[in-house]
């Protein structure tokens, strides 16, 4: 079957009442999560997974819901960047640079519409890219054996955080922490309890959803308490902003298209690269566009191309990041790791087998994403005014909602208060780790991928009867190990430079 027949099949899956409704709900929730500073795509998806699992949604349905949330958050993140100069989520940081100046000039409506269009271009292009590239990657992945998969997992960890990663030792530390969590429980290969201290609750291991929700949702609340100012009246300078002239002239829209296309291409590839993710996607798109088009020194002062490029970039990166997650089962970013966790909870192992055994999930998802983008464009252009009201919801009301939904979700999975206590433990741990500047995404990836990683390693060594050289015996694995090595060495050379320029933008932003 060719791609279009498959997509047609996917449309049959996507265009059922249930799935259309889920995509709508996902897009709406996603835009809200994205718009709210303090909640991003990863948190949003994280607190929804236990819920969708408890609701008994099947793989295709939950994937459609959660991927719509992911895409929606990528759209929504720009709203607070543009209006109040606070990025709604991390990738939207670059949008503040030209977006907020536009607001100050009274062009907020124009900025919101143009970025929505750029987001749309980025997301559609990357979904098309996903549609064509993922099956190609699957063909390669079909040749992978356990040794190659083990190498691939090591690569995912080694390249995590990409060139901008702060500190390789800390990333490795965090990853091992997550992996250590995954080793608790009965050993899948030989059936002996391991590191469970004789506690029956630990025999099943620690559900990675507990780790995810604790670290992504509860730790956020603790951070909020810490950063909260005493008796603060939350600033509502945002009330003064009027959003009028939502529809810019046709010529203006044409003007941002080249920038959006460039941003989309760069963002998509940044998304595919292991460990780069959407933040890097928007960063690369912005800096590239600035180098190319900043002839009259208009960037940073409200240039429309300066908002279009990073928005197209971060939306395209979201689609790009789905490529390795779906076709190899190796996530490159926090949000895709969380999506992967959802599939694994439903006993579906992403990777080439997903495309063979569950084509409905993959193609239904792709079709739903196309549909979702039109919904999002509609939500984010004519209805954008209503989303700005979301920003008025103070965090002191938002945070209790997040906490309660987290508890409901985790309790819904197992019905045990032991899991709730574990979730609280990981929430506190996440807070402490964040204080020490230890990234949480590797911890989460470790807890999700740990058992797969160990299984593949042990299968490979069973095949070779314990001979370790087998891990490096095929050309494919040698290539993967060399990429891993590059991923470790390159940041040592370029890391400081990239980090400095990102920090520079962060500082000017503050």
């Amino acid at each position, binding site marked *: 079957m060719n791609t279009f027949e498959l997509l047609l099949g996917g449309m049959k899956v996507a265009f059922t009442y249930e799935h259309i409704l889920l995509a709508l709900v996902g897009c709406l929730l996603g835009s809200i999560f994205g718009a709210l500073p303090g909640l991003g795509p990863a948190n949003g998806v994280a607190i929804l997974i236990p*819920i969708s699992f*408890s*609701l008994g949604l099947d793989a295709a349905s939950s994937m459609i819901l959660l991927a719509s949330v992911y895409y929606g958050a990528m759209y929504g993140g720009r709203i607070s960047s543009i209006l109040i100069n606070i990025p709604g989520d991390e990738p939207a940081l670059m949008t503040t640079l030209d977006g907020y100046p536009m607001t100050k000039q009274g062009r907020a409506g124009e900025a919101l519409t143009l970025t929505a269009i750029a987001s749309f271009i980025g997301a559609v292009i990357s979904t098309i890219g996903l549609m064509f590239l993922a099956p190609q990657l699957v063909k390669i992945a079909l040749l992978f054996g356990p040794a190659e998969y083990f190498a691939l997992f090591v690569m995912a960890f080694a390249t995590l955080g990409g060139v901008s990663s702060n*500190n390789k*030792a*800390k990333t*490795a*530390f965090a990853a*091992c922490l997550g*992996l*250590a969590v995954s*080793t608790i429980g009965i*050993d899948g*290969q*030989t*059936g*002996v*309890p*391991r*590191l469970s*201290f004789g506690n029956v609750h630990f025999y099943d291991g620690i559900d990675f959803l507990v780790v995810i929700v604790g670290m992504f949702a*509860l730790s956020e*609340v*603790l951070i*909020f*308490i*810490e950063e*909260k100012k005493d008796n*603060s009246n939350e600033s509502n300078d945002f009330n003064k902003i009027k959003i009028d002239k939502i529809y810019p002239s046709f010529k203006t829209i044409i003007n941002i298209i080249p920038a959006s296309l460039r941003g989309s291409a760069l963002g998509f590839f940044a998304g595919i690269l292991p460990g780069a993710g959407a933040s890097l996607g928007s960063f690369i798109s912005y800096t590239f566009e600035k180098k190319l088009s900043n002839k009259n020194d208009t960037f940073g002062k409200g240039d429309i191309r300066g908002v279009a490029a990073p928005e197209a970039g971060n939306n395209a990166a979201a689609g790009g990041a789905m490529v390795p997650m779906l076709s190899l089962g190796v996530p490159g970013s926090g949000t895709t790791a969380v999506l992967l966790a959802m599939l694994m909870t439903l006993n579906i192992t992403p990777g080439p087998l997903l495309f063979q055994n569950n084509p409905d999930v993959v193609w239904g998802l792709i079709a739903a994403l196309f549909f979702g983008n039109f919904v999002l464009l509609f939500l984010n252009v004519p209805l954008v005014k209503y989303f700005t009201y979301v920003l008025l919801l103070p*965090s*002191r*009301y938002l*945070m*209790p*909602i997040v*906490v*309660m*939904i987290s*508890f*409901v979700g985790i*309790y*819904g999975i197992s019905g045990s*208060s032991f899991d*709730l*206590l574990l*979730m*609280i433990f990981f*929430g*506190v741990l996440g*807070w402490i780790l964040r*204080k*020490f*500047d*230890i990234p949480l995404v590797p911890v989460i990836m470790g807890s999700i991928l740990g058992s797969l990683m*160990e299984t593949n*390693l*042990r299968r490979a*060594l*069973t095949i070779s009867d*314990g001979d370790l050289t087998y891990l490096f015996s095929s050309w494919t694995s040698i290539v993967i190990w060399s990429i891993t090595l590059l991923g470790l060495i390159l940041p040592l050379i370029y890391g400081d430079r990239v980090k400095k320029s990102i920090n520079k933008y962060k500082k000017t932003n503050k």
Partner: protein
Amino acid sequence: MTDRSLGIVFLCISVLYIYFASQTELSFISDPFGPKKFPYLIGIILLITSIFMILKPQVQVIWPNSKKTMEIILMIFIFILYAQLLPTLGFIICTFFASTLITWRLGTPFTKSIIFGLSLSLSMYLLFSVVLGLSLARGLFGF
């Protein structure tokens, strides 16, 4: 306080981790690699990176002042109490108390918090239990 202290704590944890992994009893089924070596591998990397943090601390951590610390401890206490009482008291009662307290401690006036807590617990019950059919904690009173 720097990451050195975290390094010291995790140095101990990784040694304990390796020790407990070594206590794993082997079964009659076995594979060439065995269930112990993967934890050893992780434990060793954890150990090395902890030492790295001890030798080369990079972050100066600023802990919140004592008032904030109390607030955080109180919040964790509310969470734990919620987790413990949920199966007995049921969803609506627990969620009402917990969300009221949390909203209040996050800086909302107390009466407003009560109203918010009540409406949150009732609307979540309606949404999740009645509309979506999710199994929430029933408790002794059945709701």
